[in-house]
């Protein structure tokens, strides 16, 4: 069987970023062995050796696929960099998500003193939740707890 021809592309890691070049290369690794070789001036030579079973047409398309992947990866990295804090916030919020309680009635019927006590209690709980989630609690989801740990030894004793 004739060996499929190698192909190559020169990428500008100085301009595009080495991590984008590496990922674009990685994404092709199902179809080819990809060798990255540093060149002068921040350039990188990406060489593609098609894997067995990859047909000639697909092999010939490897450089074009690499360029497209590189463009897409640069875009992904830009999005990721611009959103890391927001994404972290959203996912942390999701992990600790509890459905919002209904809005309280305008007149709570509480005395000013009782309202203050309630507000203090809410602040205290919020503080505790914040402290628990911020530091990476050992088992925040309670994965190691047993049914008895969570509900007591008799469970909820409901009859089916």
């Amino acid at each position, binding site marked *: 069987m004739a060996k499929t021809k190698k192909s190559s592309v020169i990428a500008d890691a100085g301009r595009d970023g080495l991590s984008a070049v590496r990922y674009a290369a990685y994404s092709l690794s199902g179809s080819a062995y990809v060798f990255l070789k540093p060149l002068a001036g921040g350039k990188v030579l990406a060489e593609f050796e098609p894997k067995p079973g990859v047909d000639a047409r697909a092999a010939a398309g490897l450089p074009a696929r690499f360029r497209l992947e590189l463009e897409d990866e640069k875009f992904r990295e830009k999005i990721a960099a*611009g959103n890391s804090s927001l994404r972290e916030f959203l*996912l942390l*919020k999701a*992990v600790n998500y509890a459905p919002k309680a209904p809005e309280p009635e305008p007149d709570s019927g509480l005395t000013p003193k009782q309202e203050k006590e309630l507000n203090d209690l809410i602040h205290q709980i919020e503080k505790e939740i914040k402290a628990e989630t911020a530091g990476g609690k050992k088992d925040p989801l309670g994965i190691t707890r047993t*049914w008895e740990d969570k509900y007591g030894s008799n469970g909820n004793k409901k009859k089916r």
Partner: protein
Amino acid sequence: MARTATKKSAKGTAAALPHFNFRRLSGGAVLLTNDSGMHASLSGAQFRQFRDGRVAAGSALYKDLAAKGFVRDMMDIEGYAAACAKKNSFLGAGPGLHILVLTLRCNHKCVYCQSSAVGQASRGTDMSPALARKCVDFALKSTNPGITIEFQGGEPLLNWEALKASVLHARRRARELGREVRLALVSNFSLMTEEKARFLLANEVSICTSLDGPADLHDKNRVFAGGGSHAATVKWLKYFSAAYKKQVPEFRTFKPSALLTVSRYSLGREKQIVDEYVRLGLEDVFLRPLAPIGYAKQLWDKVGYEPADFLSFYRAGLDYILKLNARGVTIRERNAVMMLEKILNGTDPGYLDMRCPCGAVIGQLAYNHNGDIYACDEGRMVGWQGDDLFKAGNVERDSYSKVMLSQASRACAAASSLDTQPQCSRCAYKPFCGVCPVYNYETQGSLSGEMPSNGRCGLFMGLFDTLFSLLAKPASAKILKGWVSK
């Protein structure tokens, strides 16, 4: 509705876009998805506008993208977090599926056997009734409010005493604890009797069997020395279906189900397989690929196939199922149903193989006949070959907490978290998909594997591509949406 602080519209830079993944589909369309599980399909031109921040504020496209969380300045933070929480609600629920391998003995010699079965006359591979009860007690330690205890083998009916003991014990403990416990039996039916069937029905054990298609195909895949495997399967499927239709006030009777394993012999026979399911009144067919795990790995040259071969089979099968649906026949494809449940409803359908992290330990536990606990049933099959990498503990020696914190548990969770996978973290199908550390280990030698050359990844990508292309067509989309509408 809570919005982010900045109220200005997108400014035309990527920084104004929120985090999302995208995939270029054949035909030029681009699929966008985000962590909340929302998706949008754009034409190539629309994607370029979106990428460059040129989608006109107020346009229908802009409103659609904003509603789905793809416009950073218009994000509904509460709604986004709620959707993320909903689709990941299984994370802290505790393992829901508990597989009790009552025996490794089996009276079948299936060509693809994945369950590490041994011959019917073998000794030392049956679970004792006492140990079976301990396994039930261990399963009941899970904080999951709706656990399922599934009896498997080998052929579990070969160890009837342990099956009976564990069913009775589970029912008694469930009553005492006031807990919902689902019991399920996976059997080839060859040893089913009227007496056993009545016991199972009376104790609300749901029944699942294997059905690989019409008789010649089924019997070729599922070799049974005692006669035709297909005949026994059909006989008892009809029996349990009749019981389901009849229903009695004393107990709930569940509709029986069947599992299909696609071997090389099944390829090209998708219509006959689907027809057989329809003929037997089954409303779901699971076009389930064979995985080169356990014994099947050794037989791969004989019964295995490439992902592309399976995808051709799958597409033809699904196309046929959609045509039957259009003619008013009730039949659904299980892969599609589970994926659509995630894509369209944002809920987790309980398919442990496609979760992130995977179902190993946090979603399921497999109890071997000797009390050893594995992260999943596939991990147990690897254990049978002498490699206990996926062993999480032992029912008699280890605490629940120790099992949950075992190395197998942590390694599987870490390896199957898609954000740690270079390709998956960038993939548009990430919100709906999951990797299998056992598959990766068996086929690529590491728990994390390497997705660009991973057969399972290629297969799942193909399934998702197929579904999204069908969702883009009104006629097929209507049927598919109907499968998961509440």
